[in-house]
């Protein structure tokens, strides 16, 4: 059963790229992908080392052939501590398959940002 929680204002999300809130004892964030306009709800704790994952950057993953660089289609959130990258939709760590961060449905409604825990 859905239970939507208010995390912050849409204006703050667009300005800062993220909004954070403590909900039911968990630090939760919603991050904003400037390129696509998508919102992603995640737990604000990197499963690698405990860093504040939602303070990381949301951007296309880099890829390439040896000696050349390209942007992949996949969007990632990059932890601000050690740079490990996660799929913000599924929570899967792209650099260590054993790790996953909790993700939550997120949406904007009437100027507010909501997540469903």
């Amino acid at each position: 059963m859905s239970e939507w929680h208010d995390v912050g204002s849409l204006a703050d999300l667009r300005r800062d790229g993220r909004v954070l809130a403590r909900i039911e004892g968990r630090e939760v964030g919603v991050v904003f992908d400037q390129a696509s306009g998508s919102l992603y709800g995640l737990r604000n704790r990197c499963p690698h080392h405990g860093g504040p994952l939602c303070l990381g950057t949301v951007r296309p993953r880099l890829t390439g052939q040896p000696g050349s660089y390209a942007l992949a289609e996949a969007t990632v959130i990059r932890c601000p501590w050690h740079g490990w990258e996660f799929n913000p939709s599924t929570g899967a760590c792209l650099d260590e398959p054993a790790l996953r961060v909790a993700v939550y449905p997120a949406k904007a409604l009437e100027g507010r940002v909501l997540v469903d825990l």
Partner: protein
Amino acid sequence: MIDCDIHPQIGDPEELLAHVEEAQRDWFRGQPYFGLPGYSWSHPSSWYRQDLSTDGRPPGSDVEAVQRDLLEPSGTEVGVLNADDAVLVSLMPSPYRAAALARAHNDWIREAWLERDDRLRGAILCPAQDPEEAAREIRRVGEDPRFVQVLLCGGAERPYGEPRYLPIFEAATELGLPVAIHSGGEGMGIAAPPGGAGPVTFYIEWHTLGSACSIMAHLVSLLVHGTFERLPGLKVLLIEGGIAWLPGILWRLDTNWRALRTDTPWLERKPSEVAREHVRFSTQPLEHTDGHDELLWEMLEAAGAPEVLCFASDYPHWDFDDPAFMLKRLPESWRERVLHENAAALYGERLGLVRA
């Protein structure tokens, strides 16, 4: 038993010079030790095992000596001859002299050694400072199946993952030859200084750090440049750089690969996994552990041992590993792999070795 590292010595300089093109022969004859860069750090007493009878020539300077000292007592089935000081051709200031000496050395190996004992195999010497010329030499000599690897020197201008060196690795891969990188030459001639903190003082420092650090640098460089992604058939054998550091450097590299992947985003797999598939390590000089061999084996297992290890004696050098001693020291379950199977797989069909 397959020995991946035997060093043929040049007993009679004229025997080698006879293979140098005539127009360059006098130049090489007039230089100290063929114009190869000299050692700033020399062994305090002797580079060689001092028990070997020499008759005024260096130990290991003819086939009979290698047979008597090594092949016969150890029952070695195949021994790979890696150039000794001549590996320093790649550190000569002149790539033209280096190419001439490498050609001569390869032809001398074929005539003076490979023709005289069918247990012996050759390593192709090439001038790394001129990779296109090196690739030509690899293709020239590599037609002879008795040459089973390409030989590069640990001392180098840049680590070997640099794209300038690709022609060497491409030629080797094309011919199905592993590339052996043998420590030595660090800080000599046109090589970068050994150890990474400026020139060292003593031979003990050079021997401890120079050889290990250069081998580490080449390993990391080849992995992060994506050399094995470019050349999926490439195999590399790292010789005489020590191995106890291997799990540490691979753990460190894997950690950095996750954190710093935007620098090298073409690396889709953990570097340690790629290393396990493509890189092999010679056992010699196997670190003395002060009675803690079990820790060494456990550490090495974390880095892919025993599959990644190949036996090497380093005959006739002072720090050689005696085959009989190694046979006893290695864990019993590792012996067949390390002493034979891994090298047989590395060299493949060129070895022409069929076991019952």
